[in-house]
Every structure is written in C-alpha cells, then in structure tokens.
C-alpha cells in the first residue's frame, strides 16, 4: 500500500496541517505518513476552546461513542479503510497484524460500552443528576473533578486507547497527544468520534513535540500520562496527573502442578507480541523454577520472525537498530542469571532493515531478583523461585497478577495488597480483559468525586 499519508492536527478549527511535520516510518524505515505537530500557541488556543465548550448532553455522548466504535472498526475513516489502517499500524508499530485486528475489536467494544462501564465505579449512593430527588433529600452527586482532560498517550499497543473513552462518556472534553511512533490509531479514533457526533471543541488530537507536551499536561484540568518509570516519578504526588507506567504483570504458579498452568504462562508472555503492559514479565514458581523455565523455553523456541503484516506473525518487529538496542538492554539485565532461551541473542533480521525479536526466558536465582521488574517490549519472561514464607512481597507492584493453584489465605493477601491492581484467580492469561473488570482501578476514581448535597 504505497503513499505517504498526511495526519493533520485535529484542533479547535478542524484539521490543521502544520509546517512542522515529523515522518512516521515503518519498521523497515520507509515513510508511511507525516504527522503535523501543533505549535504551543495552537495547543493553548485548543485548551481554551475545550474549556469554553460545555459538556455535551449524556445521551449524545453515549450515542456518539457507540457510533464511533462502529465506524472505527468497520468503515472508511479519514480516508482510510479498516484494512489499510490495520496494515499501516502493523507496519509502523511492528505488532503482529492479528494483534492489531483484535485491538480494533477491543476498541470498538470499549467505545460501545464506555457509557456503561464508566459508571461501574460510581458510588451507589450518588446520583449524576442533582435535580433527581434523593432519599430524604440528602445524599451525594457524582461530579467531574475537572472539565478538560489531556491524555499523553503511548504508541506501544492500539488497545490502550480504550481507557480514556470513559472520560468522554462522563462529559469531559478531551485532548489526546498521540505518540509519534504510532499515531494512526488515535487519528482514526478521534476522526471517528468527530464523524459520529462529538464536536471539534469536545475532542481533539494534538500531536506535539516533547516540550509542548508539558504545556498540554499543565494546561488541562487533569492529565492521564502514559510512560516509563521516569514519567511516573516526574508526576509523583501531583493530584492532577494519573500516570500509567510499566505493568510488570506476573504469574504465580502455586503448588507442585505447574504443568497445568503452562499454557496460561506461554499465552501471557507471547500474546499481543509481548508488547503490552498486561503481558507477563515474571513467573514465580512455588518450588524449583528450572523445569518451568525449561518448559516455557521449549514452547517458545519454535517462534520465528515474520513481517508484522503477515497473518502468521507472532513476534514484534522493530527497526534493526532499535531491536539491537533492546537486545543489549536484555543482555545487560541478564547478569549472572541463567538464560534458557535467548542467551545467544534475540534479534532475527528480516532483510529489509527490520528485525523480529525472539522470545527470551531467563531463570533468576531468587524471588527478589531485580530482573523481575525489567519489562521489555517483546516476549521476555523472568522465572523466579518463590516460597510461601515470602508471601505477597515479591509480587508487589503489578498490573495483573495471575495466581494459579493458590490457597484461599494467600489469595486473600494478594487481593488485599494495594500495589497489585488486578488478581486473576486460576488459569486466566494476564492479557485477557473483560468489560467490567477495571484495568488499573476505576478510571473514575481519578476523574470523578462525590459531592454532598441537601436538596431543598
């Protein structure tokens, strides 16, 4: 599919093509698009327009979200068919095209349900409409903590953009800053939202340079910021910013029967190209980790690199230089641990300037080995021993923890541990997601609050 696409800023006055544009290149270094970058002044005017707009009526929001999901997954949006969008996204992100396709379905479903799921976290006693009579005329109304939300979005996986749709459902006006690596998904999503009933001053796509991104975060009422540990640290303690950092998802294989959990482990490591925050980063084995690492390695050793747009591709693909940099990062992390797979190198060049990253499986000596926190964007898993007296300690700081074969008392501890965001009990892969299961707590814990009222 030839041709360099123009991805415009979607600002307050419709599409805006800037002089300053940055190339969006595929994994082989070929240009796929150029992305207009909004200058700081445009960002400030856009924020002012978002602030000046009032929240659209709830029924329009719900209908527009449903319609946008349908268009996103099924129609030509901003001149691009679904197939061409998926192909380009796969080529620039390096994610297997099947992963992109399932992300499209996930996004459409999230848009369809956003109006409902956004209310899963609503306090039962609160009302959304302050005119609605409360029992005894007393109670709470559920209100937005602000009016304008900025999303500093990642480019690692299209499905992560499902999160902020709930903010639109709740009446926030939203400005999204896409990553320069993969801006197609958000350009398509915002275009679909605008084609479906959201106005130009209600949802915007504001690609910017790094320096301007800070203006965006500061200028909005609230910000949702995706990034690494550095971004999490930078915004630590700022009540206006919710950070979404590395997932460091984990699996605990409890009891002796680890074989029963092997399929779940393999799936959790390799699904989604291993590039999502919900992919398993570490596996903890109640007992000897060596046979588990060996078995995982055996299951993953047959995977071969293919161009990402190939229906059979499973591994993520990067520009060769980026792949080599990740390989070096992996090698530096291994230290004196024992690699069962990938120790000889993980880069498989595809001959066109791109390279697939093959899985790596490494056994680490103890449950607190620092490698278990090293999350790399390809199928990479650290296998550690764990024993009952260590309890939840080494399992902390986890987006999704799949606990297989765990006794009830331990499950209770894991559920009680605040730094573990999700506990999947039994053989559920860490990347599985179901509407109604919050991703990282309810987003509304951040977006909304209860206000006490007495009526009349």
């Amino acid at each position: 599919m030839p041709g360099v696409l123009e991805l415009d800023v979607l600002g307050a006055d419709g599409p805006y093509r800037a002089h300053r544009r940055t190339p969006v290149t595929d994994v082989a270094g070929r240009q796929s698009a150029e992305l207009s970058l909004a200058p700081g002044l445009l960002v400030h005017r856009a924020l002012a327009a978002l602030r000046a707009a009032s929240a659209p009526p709830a029924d329009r929001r719900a209908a527009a979200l449903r319609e946008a999901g349908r268009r996103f997954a099924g129609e030509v949006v901003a001149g691009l068919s679904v197939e061409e969008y998926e192909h380009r996204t796969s080529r620039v992100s390096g994610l297997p095209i099947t992963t992109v396709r399932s992300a499209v379905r996930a996004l459409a479903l999230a848009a369809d349900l956003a109006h409902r799921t956004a209310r899963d976290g609503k306090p039962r006693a609160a009302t959304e409409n302050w005119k609605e009579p409360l029992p005894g005329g007393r109670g709470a109304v559920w209100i937005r903590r602000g009016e304008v939300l900025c999303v500093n979005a990642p480019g690692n996986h299209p499905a992560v953009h499902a999160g902020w749709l709930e903010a639109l459902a709740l009446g926030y006006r939203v400005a999204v800053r896409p990553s320069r690596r993969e801006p197609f998904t958000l350009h398509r999503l915002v275009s679909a939202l605008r084609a479906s009933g959201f106005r130009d001053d209600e949802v915007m796509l504001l690609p910017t340079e790094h320096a301007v991104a800070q203006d965006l975060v500061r200028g909005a009422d609230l910000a949702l910021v995706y990034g690494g540990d550095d971004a999490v640290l930078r915004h630590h303690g700022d009540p206006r910013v919710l950070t979404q950092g590395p997932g460091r998802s984990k699996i605990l294989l409890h009891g002796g029967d680890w074989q029963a959990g092997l399929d779940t482990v393999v799936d959790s490591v390799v699904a989604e190209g291993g590039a999502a925050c919900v992919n398993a980063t570490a596996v903890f084995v109640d007992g000897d980790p060596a046979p588990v690492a060996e078995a995982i390695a055996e299951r993953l050793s047959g995977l071969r690199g293919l161009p990402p747009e190939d229906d059979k591709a499973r591994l993520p693909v990067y520009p060769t230089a980026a792949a080599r940099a990740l390989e070096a990062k992996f090698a530096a992390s291994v230290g004196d641990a024992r690699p069962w797979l990938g120790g000889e190198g993980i880069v498989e060049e595809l001959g066109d300037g791109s390279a697939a990253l093959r899985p790596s499986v490494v056994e680490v000596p103890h449950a607190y080995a620092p490698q278990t926190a090293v999350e790399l964007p390809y199928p990479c898993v650290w296998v550690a021993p764990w024993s009952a007296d260590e309890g939840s300690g080494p399992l902390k700081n986890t987006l999704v923890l799949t606990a297989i074969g765990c006794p009830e008392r331990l499950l209770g501890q894991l559920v009680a541990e605040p730094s573990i965001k999700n506990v999947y009990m039994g053989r559920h892969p860490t990347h599985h997601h179901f509407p109604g299961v919050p991703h990282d707590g309810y987003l509304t814990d951040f977006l909304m609050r209860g206000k006490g009222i007495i009526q009349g």
Partner: protein
Amino acid sequence: MSTARESVLDLPVDEVPDPEEFIQAAMGWHFGRETGSPFWLERARSLDFDPRRDVRTFDDLALFPNVTGELRDVRAADLVPRGYGDRPRIVGFYESGGTTGAPKRVPLLADWVERIVAWNARNMDLRGDPQGVDWLALVPTGPHMFGELVRRQALLRGGVAFTVDMDPRWVKKCLAAGRTEEAGRYADHLVEQAAFVLETQQIGVLAATPPLLERMARDERLVALINEKVKTIMWSGVHMDPDTRHLLRTQVFPGIGIHGGYGSTTMLGGVDERAGLPDEAPCVVDPYSPYITFSVVNPETGRPVGYGERGQVQLNHLSKSMLLPHNLERDLATRVRQPGNQIGDSLSDIAPAAVFDDQVVAEGVY
C-alpha cells in the same frame, strides 16, 4: 582626516554605496594605522593576508577568521576605530545574551546607530507602519542593544517607547537548569507589566520577542487590548516557528501587521522581514547591504549551499564603526536570492541549529 575614499563610509542613509568600493574603503579604514581600532591593528599582525591588498570583494571577506569569540575578553574601548579621534561619540558598550558562556561586548557608535535606526524606520515606512504613536517594548534591556535600538526607533518616528525590564540571561539560566516553570513565572511577570501599559496608554506599536508575544497571545484580555490599540507588531530576538507566525497573523491578530526581524549583538542591530509577504509565505529577511550581509553555508565545508537549500548563517558586519566579518552564527536558514543589486543572500525560515527529535529506541514499552 577623512579622505575621498573614506567618504563612501559616510554616505547618507538613503544612498547605497557601491559594494566593492565600500569594502575596499572599509579595509583601508579599519587597517589604517591612523584609523583602525587597537583590536584590529593588533589582530592584523597574525593574519596570513593583507586585508588592504587582498580583500576587495564580498567573497574575500571569507578570508577573515571568525573573531567574535575574542569579543568576550577584549577591552570594549579597544574596538573603537582610532579614526573617530579622542572623543568618539560612543552610545554605549553592549553585550550579547551570553548563550554560550561569557558575553561578547561591542561598542555602539552614534553614526552607526543613527544609520541602522534610520534604515529600520525607512523599512517601517515601506510597510506603512504608523508614525507618531507610542510603543511598548518587551525586549532585552540593560546591557543589551535591542532595548536601546527600539527606544531610538520610536523616537525617530515621533513616539515614545514604554519598556519593561528584561534579563534574557536569567531565562536562559533557568532553562539550562531545567527550571522551565521558573522561566515561565518570569515571563508572566513581564507580561503582567506589559498589561499595565497596554491598559492605560495608547500603544500603536508593540515590539516583543516571540516567546513573550506568544504568552500575550494566550491571554484573551491582552489579545483584545492589542487588537483594539496596536497597529503594528514587531518581533525579533529569537526565531519564530512558521506555524506560530501563521497563527498569529491569521487567527490571533488578523488585523495587525506582524513583522519579524533578525538581529544580534554581532550584527550591531538587526534586519527586517521583507515587506508585503503574504500570510502563507515564509518569513524572509533581506540584508542591509553592504553593512549587514549574509551567506548560507554548508557547516561541514563552509561553502555556500544552493538557493532554496538550508545551511548555516554566516554574517558580516561592515561599517565605519565596526568590522565583524565571517561570523558563523548558530542559526540555520534557507538561502534566498536577495532582491536588487545587493551583496550576499537573503534568508528565510531562520531556526536554531539544534532541533532534536525523540527517538523510538530508548522508549521501552511505551
């Protein structure tokens, strides 16, 4: 003391000298034992050419080494040509922003400042800018030349410039240390002072650096005041990106003439945006030939790039008061054919040399 040959250095403002005659006269002046500055007479001893014999054309100026780094240490008085006599009319010693270490110093002599200010004023006439109005200037003051030049431009055109104290070095220090919020607070402090002037005075011309102009453009109340009162906005000092320029011209201040300039301490002034450019066109500045002239060169080879190509800006200042040839600036620009019978190039899309893009490799999962 003035000879016929030197008189070409003293032509009236509206009379354009023959470039080669001018260059040769300037060499004679700056390297004459009786007329040259102590700095250049001393410096000439270590040149491997004789400026009076070998520098005859614009291209020959490239024989000179770039001496601007020496302006950090040399005694400013030693830069004044002896030919001005015992009591030269020195307006002041002015300093650069100090972006790259200790500041550079130059003397500003009255004959030159009168010439450049008159030329800037004539360019304003060509654009149809208003006469007899007061100005508001948010530009570097104190040791910096910019504030002084703006003050004189306003006076020459029958107005008075209100100024706001501005120390660009503090801003640079904040930014270099990553204290962007502090730099922002300082900018707000400046804009707040500008607001008092705009509210109470009849301001017809606003001169500001691009970051401050942009900050004012974020404030709806100030935008309304400016649109109500101001007829002409002039920006200079640092570059303005084409997208911001376009937004300012078309959306924020649509009825106001917005004109850029390109100046620096080592230019001893600044040149102006070409008059009459449409909103869609990039900002082009023309030289003040033969006094302030430009070349656009490949930074690797030092050779000129083709027209329409980007390269590094190399500038020459050549006047009776000062000789600063072959000065490689940190800026990049597109080489544009200069209009008429001038020497050197015109410039468009001037931007700082280093613009970094974020890279994928180090991003990790995100």
